[in-house]
């Protein structure tokens, strides 16, 4: 990883080359490796190292953004020049006020030296027991183990300099056999916190229980959702409406509803980029410290996340949720928490329903109601009189996630970190009346 001194020199080269009124440099350094296995064998094993930097030039209220990965002084100057030219030729952005000024930054605690130094052999040794365990049991395992080390640095010509390093490890397994399929995944800041055997046993256990699935008719069922499925609900809510831009555009399901109850009283959701469980993001790509934001408090719409531009439009302060410069999506809540409950045995209270491991290929059908369609995958089970009695073939649902969060009848005490585009820390949920609209052949 580049040292602080090298990073400051890179930024200084950019500032010296810039004729813009304000200049920002975001440097993203990635050292990542991923080992992928399928059919109980490694079939893909990759590593990459890249340092990419983005320059945002501000001329009056005109902005230009350019990105490059040539770190030579000439390469840096070329990117600065491109950003400046784009800014000069751009029309004014009336709501833009200024790049952020320096603010006190929180400490950084997301780095594991041993994780960063992980070897290809270590990743292969992780995959080995998962595949062997599956093969011994007559099943087939697929999945991956990934190690990432990243350094993100933001500097601007107003004196802001923020730099953070973080590591992350992720592993997932799908185990298949006899018409059944089981899933498990794990994510952590430190690879040592992930136990391949525990991962294998969870996926294998689910695959065993999934064998010889029966068909059930589509219709409305009470469901118990594993954290893998609950994560999908939070992710959809985030992309469809927890950002200020979608509220300002009137496309969010929260637009015009702040202070109203939009979910059940047992639902509270917040975003906390510095939470203990998540891969931390102490500041955003504008260098603004990332703050905890309450989004839903006891079912009531309470807030959204901001970046500098949307905050300025709303007369508020940025909450530190910007996406990288050049993105047109607006701010995004990407470290979401759903408040845990007290009941870890959610199946017991279900008279007839389904236990769902995860959702797959979920897409919005209507954004205002957050109606989604998608499939179940890798483990669906029929519950009768409080017991899991059979594996079930997969089903398609078309259901409103908002309606679902108004019909939660049980929340587990335990939560789990899920990462798929964004971080979510979620419990299991029991939901009444989930609408399944068709079935599939497996």
């Amino acid at each position, binding site marked *: 990883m580049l040292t602080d001194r090298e990073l400051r020199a890179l930024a200084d080269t950019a500032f010296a080359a810039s004729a813009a009124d304000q200049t920002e440099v975001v440097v993203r350094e990635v050292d990542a490796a991923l080992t992928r296995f399928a059919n109980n064998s490694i079939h893909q094993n990759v590593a990459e190292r890249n340092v990419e930097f983005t320059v945002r030039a501000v001329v009056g209220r005109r902005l230009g953004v350019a990105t490059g990965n040539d770190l030579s002084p000439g390469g840096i100057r070329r990117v600065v020049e491109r950003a400046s030219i784009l800014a000069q030729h751009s029309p004014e952005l009336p709501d833009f006020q200024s790049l952020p000024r320096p603010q006190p930054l929180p400490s950084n605690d997301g780095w594991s030296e041993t994780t960063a130094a992980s070897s290809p052999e270590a990743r292969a040794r992780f995959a080995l027991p998962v595949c062997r365990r599956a093969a011994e049991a007559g099943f087939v395992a697929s999945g991956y183990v990934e190690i990432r080390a990243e350094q993100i640095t933001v500097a601007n010509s107003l004196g802001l300099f923020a730099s953070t390093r973080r590591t992350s490890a992720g592993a997932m397994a799908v185990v298949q056999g006899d018409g059944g399929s089981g899933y498990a995944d794990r994510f952590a800041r430190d690879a040592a916190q992930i136990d391949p055997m525990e991962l294998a046993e969870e996926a294998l256990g689910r695959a065993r229980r999934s064998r010889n699935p029966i068909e059930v008719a589509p219709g409305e069922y009470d469901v118990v959702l594993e954290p893998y499925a609950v994560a999908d609900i939070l992710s959809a809510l985030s992309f469809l409406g927890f950002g200020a831009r979608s509220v300002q555009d*009137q496309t969010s399901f929260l637009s015009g509803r702040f202070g109203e109850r939009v979910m059940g009283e047992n639902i509270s959701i917040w975003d906390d980029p510095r939470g203990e469980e998540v891969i931390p993001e102490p500041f955003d790509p504008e260098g603004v410290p990332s703050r905890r934001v309450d989004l839903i408090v006891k079912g009531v719409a309470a807030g959204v996340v901001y970046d500098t531009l949307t905050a300025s439009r709303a007369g508020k302060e940025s909450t530190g949720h910007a996406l990288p410069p*050049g993105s047109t999506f607006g701010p995004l809540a990407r470290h979401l928490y759903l408040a845990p409950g007290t009941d870890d045995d959610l199946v017991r209270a279900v008279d007839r329903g389904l236990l769902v491991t995860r959702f797959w290929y979920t897409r919005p059908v209507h954004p205002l109601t957050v109606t989604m369609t998608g499939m179940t995958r890798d483990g669906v089970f029929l519950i009768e009189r409080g017991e899991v009695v059979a594996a079930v073939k997969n089903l398609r649902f078309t259901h409103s996630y908002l309606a679902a969060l108004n019909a939660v009848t049980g929340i587990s005490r335990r939560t789990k970190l899920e990462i798929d585009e964004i971080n979510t820390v979620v419990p299991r949920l029991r939901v009444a009346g989930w609408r399944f609209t068709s079935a599939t052949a497996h």
Partner: protein
Amino acid sequence: MRDVAQRALDTAISRGAQYADVRVVELRRESVAVKNGAVDAITSEESAGFGVRVVVDGAWGFASSAILSTAEADRVAALAVAIGRASALLSLRPVTLGPPVTTRGRYVTPVIRDPFTVSLEERLALLLAADEAMRRQPAIVVAEGRVGCERQRKLFLNSEGADVEQELTETGVAIECTARAEDELQTRSYPNSFGLHMGTAGWEFVEQQQILAHAERIADEAAALLTAKQCPPGVTTVILDSSQTALQVHESCGHAIELDRVFGSEAAYAGTSFLTPDKLGTYQYGSEHVTIVADATIPGGLGTFGFDDEGVPAQRTTIVDRGRFVGYLTSRETAAQLGQASNGTMRADGWNRLPLIRMTNINLEPGTWTLEDLIADTDEGILMQTNRSWSIDDRRWNFQFGTQIAWEIRGGKRGALLKNATYAGITPEFWRSCDAVCNREEWIVWGLPNCGKGQPPQTMHVGHGAAPARFRNVRVGLLR
């Protein structure tokens, strides 16, 4: 570029690789986006780097770096070999690549007007004019437009003697508007939805789309949808417009025929496929009206190129022949498992990614109908246009799609506007129910720049030639 590639290749072989290839890629990308009369983002991106892929001890290794130097070539090649050796710790079957690839050649996308030479002012003027036209409709709360272009220069060398250079240029455009009423939100876009409509071409591609001629229309349609009738539930005849037919091909055929996926390499992520090898040559995938080809050679398609990222020349392959499933998209390794040669579909999303089997231009061949005649021939049904949502299961079997806009068809005439239209089905049942495809006049090659696959995730640019098509006994109206 060449010295780095050659050095990496030499180092990989000297370190023990049985096979090695190197791709050096330079990427340049520009995007201009406007929103509600103002600039949303103007961006320019440049990236360069190289990736080294090896087979060592019968297993795959890959490493990449952004530093283009011979010293880094040594480090990365050695790392790729080390990774390959680690893979061999858990490798049940040694990699076989079939016949060697010794292609030597050069390919450059034909471009009439280089998009990078089009001034920012001209790009902005076009988008802002369309934006203004959309916002003349009072119900519109968000109007957006974007143009984008990118150019990749690629050098590919392998240890078997292949030496291929390519310069691929892509250009695209999109406009979109959203209308809002108190309890309804409706979006229309043009030419397609979810990102740019792109082609391998220059600025002439943007001009051909004539976005100004469509801006007011889509704004009026979005406004009209606010009070339109809800698409009723039921089973009926559906006519899909060209772009939705293209997406149908993409999801239910294009992904299902990726042979790496069929063999399980995506099982943990994108899924597998119901089109297993025992079905090859015999399975009735669709009706006699359904002929689908994979064609990386058609002019202007977003999946058009000279050579894939294994150095195999671009090809045209029949996938479905009058309804019968006859071909896959293949790589060297997967084709060898079927005793075939690769049909050239391995592509990587950049220098830092390993090539995977990706769609090229997966085209539904045109039929004989005009859309007008097809509607006139339909007693009762629904005409659906422009994708709004898409979802399909992990074997590409059970799907549900929605479109931005739809119209009732009654007595052979286009009738009332319908909102929130959805349809669902089972892939082979759906394609077997296809009883008409429109002719070449109605046939458009759609460019989809957002096809996802792989871990780490890769986004590929692919094309689909399609014309409007009619399907019988389709379940519709799943959103109530």
